[in-house]
């Protein structure tokens, strides 16, 4: 892959990841949020793929395929099933309303750019300059976990955090070892499965997926 094409596709894919993070805050319909998450997973895989092709690193390409399969297909499918089983699958009353949380996301992006200046200065490559996008995704994920009430939204927030960390790892270190990446991916996959089971239990016991209603212990 030659210079400008490599840089612009890498920038584009990193941009897609951040935009998908914002879309999860923007849309109220949870099925749309899960779709955005799937696109984000694919974009993350694409980043790894581009880096792998650029550096002729076969392991990184394998990792890219794994990321696409787990974060682009498996996890969104699992979440999609939970969403489909919940008839009122909308984030109706988030703690912070949508326009305010979008402005918050913009502020967090600025914060990420400000905070990662030293890191960016350390890595003088195209990939290094994109590290702030990963940090912004991570911060938006935390924010989403704080301000959203539905169990699914919080899982999505967790996944955003994970995708942000993975993006920073790919961009800053040019790929983590396969074993570490496998471990992290499986870890997240397992967490999603457990959360999905928990959500299904919540749904069958209480008929809601709203975490704010789980204030007290019951028998």
């Amino acid at each position, binding site marked *: 892959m030659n210079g400008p094409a490599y840089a612009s596709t890498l920038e584009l894919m990193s941009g897609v990841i951040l935009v998908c993070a914002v879309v999860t805050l923007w849309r109220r319909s949870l099925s749309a949020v899960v779709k955005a998450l799937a696109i984000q997973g694919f974009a993350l895989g694409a980043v790894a793929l581009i880096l792998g092709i650029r550096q002729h690193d076969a392991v990184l390409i394998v990792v890219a395929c794994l990321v696409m399969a787990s974060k682009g297909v498996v996890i969104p499918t699992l979440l999609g099933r939970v969403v489909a089983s919940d008839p009122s699958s909308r984030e109706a009353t988030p703690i912070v309303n949508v326009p305010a949380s979008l402005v918050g996301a*913009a502020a967090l992006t600025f914060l990420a750019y400000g905070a990662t200046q030293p890191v960016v200065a350390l890595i003088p490559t195209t990939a290094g300059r994109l590290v702030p996008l990963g940090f912004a995704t991570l911060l938006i994920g935390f924010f989403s976990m704080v301000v959203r009430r539905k169990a699914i939204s919080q899982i999505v927030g967790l996944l955003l955090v994970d995708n942000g960390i993975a993006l920073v790892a790919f961009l800053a270190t040019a790929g983590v070892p396969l074993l570490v990446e496998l471990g992290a991916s499986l870890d997240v996959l397992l967490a999603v499965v457990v959360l999905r089971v928990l959500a299904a239990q919540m749904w069958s016991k209480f008929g809601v997926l709203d975490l704010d209603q789980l204030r007290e212990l019951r028998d």
Partner: protein
Amino acid sequence: MTGFQNVVAAGLVAGAQIVTVSVGGLLLVGVMRKVRSHLEGRVGPPIHQPLLDVRKLFTKQRMHPEQASWVFGAGPVVLVATAVVVAAISPLATTRPPLGRSADFFAIVFVLLLGSVSLALGALDTGTPFGGMGSSRAMTIGALAEPALLVAILAMSIPAHTSNLPVLVRMGLAHPEMIASPARILALGSFVVIILAESGRLPIDNPSTHLELTMIHEAMLLEYAGPDLGLVTLGESMRLTLLLGLLVNLLVPWGVADRPGAVSIVIGLGALAGKVALAGIAIATFEVFTAKLRLFRVPELLAGGFVLAVLGAVTALVVR
């Protein structure tokens, strides 16, 4: 070429752009209605119907409400005048339009806004409830769209180091990879949301509604009749065409004339017509599948546009 010939050539280019935008704008509205009708299973009015409507309106008697002051009559005139000015100096058919150096993106946007503000003032002038309601809503949406638009322009200007529109379009022609940069794409995404808001299309406003209570833009026109209504229709279609024309020239600049000469400018006009028609068809198709947003949900959409623009600006600053 002598100075006089230059002036004549510039005047011809400006005239060609103005005629294309005014006639083409009305045809664009016709095309969008036709596409919508087809998708809904109706035949729909012919494509040139808006032209016939406006011609008929211009032959009618001028009628003003008794209480109206000169502001009422000035609204439509200013609307059309601003659209004509922007049509003359924007890089629509050529990247070297007359007075191209003053075609700053910020300036052009504010000249266009002057038109919508004058229309809102005209609607307020008669003191009828619907006119006031429409103006108030239109200005609220305008006030929300404005910051997003400013930041979107900023995001597009940072990589080019200028907010001069002809230069922006020329840079797109010279460096196609700049168009695919995240900053530009995010800013253009935000620009699309703002165009929908500013030109009163779905999902923000329904241009074909007959319910006064849900109207935004149409409510401002209820008092207008005859030639004034004709001017407003013309001005609005020109505004939509101008905004779409700027969007397509920033997104896909190919076809725009980059050198002087009658042939290349004619090609540029043809390319412009084709690209804007495609954009119009896309919007009309999108409108068939969407419903109007609740008024209180509009800020969410515009906040989304704002965030896209901010992300674009930040990306432009860092990726630089």
